[in-house]
């Protein structure tokens, strides 16, 4: 087994909620303690809190680890500890080899300098040698698509151009370990595609990657495993799909924390009545929900929700009443079953299927944990819904043009599509 390239070993990091220092009385002891380096002050004082609370993970060469979690979960803090910008209060963070960080990629740019001058500056900040930058210069400019403006001061650049040039420099690093913090929200779609391609190439080249993002589709595209953080604690460290489910639960949790979700259980069944979590697009599925009687209310109906995990958007919501089932009166101690039949006309991706119980006052009184549904579909490039498209291509004339391509041409096309 190869040595891990990144070891994050039981890391704790505290932050202070209060103003930095209210008086010289606080400042002087803090500065003095900073000088005595090896003794760490690792207890909480005053308004301090743990931004990272006993977080551990390892990443091996060739592996990509995603870090997701709600805002303020400690994702960026973890990354800053990895890049040595912050130091852990307890535990240790070790990174082997040359580190490339795609963090705030245009941070070193000076508005008055030209694109060319800034490329050298930014490259040096990221630890590239001048000779290396010179060698890759054309490639970088080409990647950013700013060739005609390269000798213009960057203050005349658009935000997009700025970010693209910044990313381009970072993308031409040659690191052993790559740390990426939510940088792909820059540029237009075409550029984002290019960035993903670049990152995938990084991933395939056998380096270790840590990727922090809110974009679940990017995470699931790139990462093998995902660390889910909440309020500085590890909620899960699992293969991507499982971790995404945990995350979906978290997101929902935040909304309906007070609802006792364990009383509602969702099961998904295929056409033969067997439990499934993965279906082909367009397949029929049955969602069977059992629920004990919630504490408040008398008449109950159910609401089904399907959440697209990659984007976090709700793609479907419907109530049992809208689907034609009357509300049910339940005696205390009773239980109910709701059975939905539906067709998975969904695009390829991961979905969270959950069910809420609603009383006669339209209050949510109970909600299930989302069940993970993976939809497979191979015919589309990108899809939100399953349109079941089929296609025929034929030449109209002349008659001689009507031939299918040879095997050679076929493989050439496939190769081009892959690169």
């Amino acid at each position: 087994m190869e040595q891990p390239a990144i070891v994050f070993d039981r890391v704790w990091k505290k932050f202070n909620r209060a103003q930095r220092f209210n008086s010289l009385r606080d400042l002087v002891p803090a500065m003095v303690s900073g000088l005595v380096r090896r003794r760490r002050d690792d207890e909480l004082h005053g308004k301090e809190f743990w931004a990272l609370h006993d977080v551990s993970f390892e990443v091996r060469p060739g592996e990509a680890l995603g870090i997701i979690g709600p805002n303020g979960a400690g994702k960026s803090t973890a990354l800053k500890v990895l890049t040595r910008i912050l130091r852990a209060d307890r535990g240790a963070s070790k990174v082997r080899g040359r580190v490339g960080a795609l963090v705030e990629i245009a941070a070193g740019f000076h508005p008055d300098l030209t694109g060319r001058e800034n490329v050298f500056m930014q490259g040096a900040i990221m630890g590239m040698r001048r000779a290396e930058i010179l060698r890759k210069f054309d490639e970088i400019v080409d990647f950013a698509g700013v060739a005609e403006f390269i000798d213009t001061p960057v203050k005349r650049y658009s935000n997009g151009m700025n970010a693209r040039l910044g990313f381009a420099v970072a993308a031409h690093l040659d690191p052993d370990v790559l740390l990426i913090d939510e940088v792909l929200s820059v540029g237009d779609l075409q550029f984002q595609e290019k960035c993903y391609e670049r990152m995938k190439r990084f991933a395939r080249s056998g380096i270790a990657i840590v990727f922090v993002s809110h974009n679940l589709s990017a995470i699931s595209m790139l990462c093998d495993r995902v660390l889910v953080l909440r309020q500085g604690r590890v909620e899960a460290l699992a293969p991507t799909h499982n971790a995404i489910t945990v995350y979906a639960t978290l997101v929902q949790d935040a909304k309906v924390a007070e609802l006792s979700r364990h009383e509602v259980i969702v099961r998904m069944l295929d056409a033969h009545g067997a439990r499934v979590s993965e279906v082909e697009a367009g397949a029929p599925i049955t969602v069977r929900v059992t629920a004990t009687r919630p504490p408040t209310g008398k008449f109950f109906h159910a609401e089904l929700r399907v959440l697209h995990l990659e984007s976090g958007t709700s793609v479907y919501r419907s109530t049992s009443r809208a689907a034609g089932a009357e509300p049910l009166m339940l005696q205390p101690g009773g239980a109910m079953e709701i059975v939905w039949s539906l067709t998975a006309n969904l695009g390829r991706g991961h979905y969270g299927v959950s069910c809420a119980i609603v009383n006669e006052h339209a209050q949510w009184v109970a909600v299930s944990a989302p069940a993970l549904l993976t939809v497979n579909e191979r015919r589309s490039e990108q899809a939100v819904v399953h349109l079941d498209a089929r296609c025929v291509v034929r030449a109209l004339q002349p008659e001689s043009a009507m031939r299918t391509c040879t095997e050679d041409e076929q493989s050439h096309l496939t190769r081009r599509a892959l690169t």
Partner: protein
Amino acid sequence: MRAVTRDFQEMLSEQWEYRELLYQMTVRDLLVRYKQTIMGFGWAVFMPLVNTVLFSVIFTRVARLDTDVPYPLFAYTGLLFWNFFASSLRFAVISLSGNANLVTKIYFPREIFPFSAILVCLVDLAVGATILIALMIYYHVRPGPTLLVVPLLLLIQTLFTAGVGLLIAMANLFLRDIKYVFEMVLMIWMFATSVVYPVELVGGKLGTILTMNPMTPILDGYRATILRGELPAFGPLAIAAALAIVTMLVGWLVFHRAEYQFAEYA
């Protein structure tokens, strides 16, 4: 002690690893200044020159001051090298707080900020030195072989400047008032140093205190070696050199050990 040795090894190897960044950062600051101002490097000459004229009027017309070299030459030499010290520190003190976006986002040895501030001012010094040469020609002052000592003086001054620069850059990050306090300190410091008059003239108890100022033997050293062709007074200069080395070592070590906290205060 072992820990200190290890820290210094770490500090030096980091500086070596990031030497190109130090170069780029210096080039950046020079380019920016050249682009943002019409006079560019002219300012490096202009400031000490205006001050020289000003003090020449005061100390040759208002209050006559006897100096063994023509006064403008005395004043310009003092102001030129003092300016290297003072403007290095003016840039250094804001070098961390002014680059907060870099300090909080990307890791590299933070010493690079104050160091590059000093290098930029070293370039200014070189530009300003052309006027010194012109003045020397005008006053028929012929430099002797003692000119060879100047690099040593420059080294002592740079070490001292770097030590102070590291400390105040760090302090200003933790407490933003430092910048204003230091501006005042610099003004007082200038008149406590033999910049525009020989500070020995102060005399009395205050004069005794002022002899501890390491900048005076350094500036006197420049005048002795460049203008008079003499070797600098060994005793005071040796003390100043020792102080410069200690300031640099302590300043750098403290800076390095506090470095991990910078991102939280920037």
